[in-house]
């Protein structure tokens, strides 16, 4: 049996909405890690790992196949393509030997929606209470926040590009809002 048949994010349609000014997708399989590191070790960890962990809460670094975010004073979140798994796990194994830290694999805990297009800000704001003007939420900013009653991680990778990471069981709820928003847009 192929890995595809085993893998099931619970939501079957990859695309929720596809239009010129808004496209909402369900992202394919990713690996995810929660990193907890003493703030005093960041420089050394960065040097040893090349992970480019941002120092400031809300900061992020988007690489070729990985996305590193700072969510709290001692908390980082790494999302990467599946084929980066081995490389990352080697790095983590090395770090675990020389630093006091915590690395936990949460690859399957989350699901990620990708939102693209001129209407992406509006779509995020139907459930997220943050001010998403570029002044307050610039490209590259990430944060844990809420989408209505669901806890999420919101990421902005472009003026019109957002990611919403949520725990698996909250995904249908969030998707439900996007579907109603899409119906609204179609009717308006």
């Amino acid at each position, binding site marked *: 049996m192929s890995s595809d048949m085993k893998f099931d994010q619970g939501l079957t349609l990859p695309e929720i909405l596809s239009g010129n000014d808004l496209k909402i997708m369900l992202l394919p399989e990713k690996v995810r890690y929660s990193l907890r590191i003493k703030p005093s070790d960041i420089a050394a960890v960065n040097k040893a790992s090349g992970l480019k962990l941002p120092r400031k*809460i*809300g900061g992020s670094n988007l690489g070729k196949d990985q996305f590193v975010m700072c*969510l*709290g*004073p001692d908390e980082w979140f790494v999302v990467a393509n599946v084929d980066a798994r081995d490389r990352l796990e080697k790095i983590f194994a090395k770090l675990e030997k020389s630093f006091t830290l915590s690395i936990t694999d949460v690859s399957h805990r989350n699901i990620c929606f990708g939102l693209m297009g001129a209407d992406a800000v509006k779509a995020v704001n139907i459930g997220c209470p*943050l001010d998403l003007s570029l002044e307050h939420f610039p490209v590259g900013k990430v944060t*844990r*926040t*809420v989408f209505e009653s669901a806890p999420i991680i919101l990421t902005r990778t472009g003026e019109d590009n957002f990611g919403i990471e949520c725990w698996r069981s909250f995904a249908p709820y969030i998707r439900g809002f996007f579907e109603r928003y899409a119906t609204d847009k179609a009717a308006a």
Partner: protein
Amino acid sequence: MFLIHCPHCQEDRPEIEFAYAGEAHIVRPGPEQQDAMSDAEWSEFMFIRDNVRGEHCERWWHANGCNMFFNAVRNTVSDKFIKTYKIGHKRPSASQIQKWKDAANG
């Protein structure tokens, strides 16, 4: 819905991301201290709170944010936050609170 300034995130964030966590600056006694405390003293620590009318030092948790607990001075009559600060800082004095209020009022 308040905007609350998280001292870790260093920005104003909507109240819905936070959870209230009771009165601040109540230190849990260590094990030796616990053993030395009478039931009455222990009950005082466990159950008795100030219920201030006015400036109240209290704890908040940025649960859907940076995940940090922090402290705040808030006026329980106007509901206004006067200042938020990280855990580990001492309970602010009355004059310190006044300074913060003056600064907030320009």
